[in-house]
């Protein structure tokens, strides 16, 4: 039975692959390679918040570092052994106040900026999962991360997970553009980390927990899904593909796949029934 089930699954995967290959507009070969040195292409609706914070902090950091280096080099040349050292313990009230004031200014500007922006961005956007639960447009996907692949599950027309019409894919996640996509992540074996470099988001899949992640793509195309947590021998091969489709293409794809899945549904294939009832709140 087991081997028969596997055969059917392989056949289904083969059919899906063939279908994908012959359907125009769907899943062209690979993601577009990145070029140059810097952050990868940002295709997320909100990724620019992270990019801006990284870049602005980078400017601060580079300025501070350059000041430090100039200070050190200048001191080494201007105050070398020919220079008479000043006898100063630097513990006068004036010196202490200057040191504390300088540290405070750097702290409030650089760290304050990080703190303010990270706090507003995480609570308003990146970790604000609850607000999306009531969004009727949001797409829900369950992801089962395991050694060494990503299984994804979509509801069919019935809107419920772990039912007959669920669409199940392997290392192939397709989402509509311009719509929030919510993921719930689990792992049956070791820790994995679902990572979308082009969407600036990452979340661990932790055995025993259901973790949440959401994103919203602003461009169509194909993008890498990576595993960011060392998960064993083939960690480096735990690669998936995110395909961002137009809303219509996505709708057609889900409907089509759901119909195929319903026809091929095998109630005895327990391995395929890893889904769960969507957890609105953790």
């Amino acid at each position, binding site marked *: 039975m087991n081997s028969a089930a596997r055969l059917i699954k392989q056949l289904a995967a083969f059919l899906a692959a063939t279908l994908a290959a012959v359907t125009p507009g769907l899943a062209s070969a690979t*993601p577009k*390679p*990145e070029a*140059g040195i*810097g*952050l990868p292409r940002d295709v997320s609706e909100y990724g620019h*918040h992270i990019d801006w914070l990284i870049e602005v*902090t980078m400017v601060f*950091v580079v300025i501070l570092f350059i000041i430090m280096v100039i*200070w*050190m080099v200048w*001191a*080494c040349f201007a*105050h070398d*052994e020919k*220079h008479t*050292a*000043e*006898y*100063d*313990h*630097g*513990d006068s009230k004036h*010196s*202490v106040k200057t*040191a504390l004031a*300088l*540290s405070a200014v*750097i*702290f409030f500007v650089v*760290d304050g900026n*990080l703190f303010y*922006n*990270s*706090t507003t961005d*995480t609570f308003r956007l*990146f*970790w604000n999962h609850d607000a999306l639960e009531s969004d009727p447009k949001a797409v829900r996907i369950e992801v089962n991360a395991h050694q060494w692949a990503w299984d994804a599950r979509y509801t069919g027309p019935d809107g419920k997970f772990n039912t007959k019409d669920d669409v199940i894919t392997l290392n192939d996640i397709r989402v509509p553009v311009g719509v929030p996509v919510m993921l719930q992540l689990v*792992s049956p*074996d070791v820790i994995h*980390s679902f990572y979308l*470099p082009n969407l*600036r988001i990452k979340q*661990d899949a*932790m*055995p*025993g927990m259901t*973790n*949440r992640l959401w994103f919203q793509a602003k461009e169509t195309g194909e993008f*890498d899904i*990576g*595993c*960011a947590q*060392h*998960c*064993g*021998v*083939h*960690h480096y091969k735990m*690669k998936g593909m995110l395909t961002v489709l137009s809303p219509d293409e996505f709708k057609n794809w889900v409907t089509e796949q759901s119909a195929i899945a319903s026809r091929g549904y095998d109630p005895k294939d327990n391995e395929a029934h890893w889904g769960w009832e969507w957890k609105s709140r953790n």
Partner: protein
Amino acid sequence: MDLQHIHPEPTSFVRKHIFSTDHKVIAKQFLWAGLLFLAFGGALAMLIRWQWAFPGEPVPVVGPMLFQNSGGAITPSSYNAIFTMHGLIMIFFAITPIMIGAFGNFCIPLMIGARDMAFPTLNMLSFWTFVVSQLLVIVSFFVQLGSAAAGWTTYAPLSTQVGTPGLGQTLVVAAVFVTGVATIMGGINYVTTVVRLRAPGMTYMRMPATVWGLWLTAILNVLFVPVLGSAALLLILDRQFGTQFYIAGSSAVRGGGDPILFQHLFWIFGHPEVYILILPPWGFVTDLVSFFARKPAYWYKGSVMAMTAVSVLSAVVYGHHMFVTGMNPMLGQSFMTLTLIISVPAELLFLNWLHTIWKGSIRLTVPMLFALGTIFVFGLGGLTGLFLGTISTDLYLHDTMFVVGHFHLTMAAAAFLGSFAAIYFWFPKMFGRNMNQSLGKWHFWFSAIFITLVFCGQLVAGYAGHQRRLFDPYQYTFLQHLQPLNRWTSYFGFILAASQVTFVVNFFQSVFAGTKAEQNPWEIGTLEWTLPSPPVHHNFDVIPQVHRGPHEFSNPEVKKTLGRDWIGQDEELPKTGKAPAAPAAAAS
């Protein structure tokens, strides 16, 4: 001091050189053991760099011998063991013994005016327990399925039988436990020695910053290594005795445990560990920039308070390693806030160092160069930490090479350059011989430049999204364009490794054939330089009376009366204007 009797020096070879209770001998033993494993860990790093530069290609020279079944190329499973053991060896079996084992042992009693550690026998046991842990590491490479491969962080369940079967992982976890026992023994000794055996007049605020750094490190070790020990013990139970403390998911039976528990235990230890490894270099640097700028350490008390504040904060920021584990956002927010607060004392330390060298009379000796190099790399490492301590930027940068570059600049580069600053500085006192200064300068420039390039290369790769620990990064389309960058980084790494020959040659030549060192070659006032090089078995014939702090340089009054720009901590300033005949004489 009634506490400290003068014991006669042992005469047998075994008691003198092997099972010695003399802190100066144990320091050298730790130094040799640490340097040996530093070379070992460095060699593993070169294999990793080869793999990222030329994935799947046979490793030249050593490849056919090490990877027989794959034609000399590194396989995914051996790659995992290589990066895991590189991290564990460098942290627990190279940097820790060199900085804490060797210099903690050597500097603390000499610099505070003690005849030995508070517990000399415990000190000896600490070293030999450490040797047992090193042996366990070596053995782990020769068992079936090879050494540990779950990453240096040893995250469960990957590190349990679920992810890493084989005896090697168990042996390495056991080695970490055993080395933890050795560290705790050493830590108790250091803490007690500083509290109990300071010479009269050696108040806490007159202790050299080196002793402060080592002491705070010892306190953190005593408090937090037991947590690592517990984590390791539970992991051994999970691995060998069928418990399920850390196992969840489909491998869990009857409820199982929780993998996140391991991360909490690991990082409660792991974050203080970062400071355990950086506090001693901070101490070295605070002292050395003052010694070689011939100027008092700027706001010394402020530096001490900053180091203490960082030590306290280090215990409550560990959660920033776990932002993407599914942590409660409010908890994450608290950890981020505490993490960012650490930048205040860190900035103060930097400002004090920079103020110390400003308007000094800088002598660019080899130890001073290494101290300035430590400030340089730690500046880069500390600043890049800002991006990782902040939640929203960490969502992107977490578990990328940016993290690897960041912690290598702090824990590896700063600890590496800081350790060498200490080695070049105390070598004359330790071995009674001088090191070659021009070879030392070559060693410095090659090390400082290439270590910066290697870890900055990692930062740039991580900025582009490159995950860490990938056997073949170029499987990913978005990383393919980084191969030239990684290849260059590898070349820099190979040059860095090759240039260490200048140190090896210098070290051996100086240990066995260096010119005899003077008593006080650097002309500074801390207590160890009042002793002959090397000091006698019991250090001080008479326990000195301390009159002042360690950084009394360029004092106009001293210049007028003694005609030099430094004065010993135990020296009494004569009331008359006559210079005494014997400078730096031990107060007797």
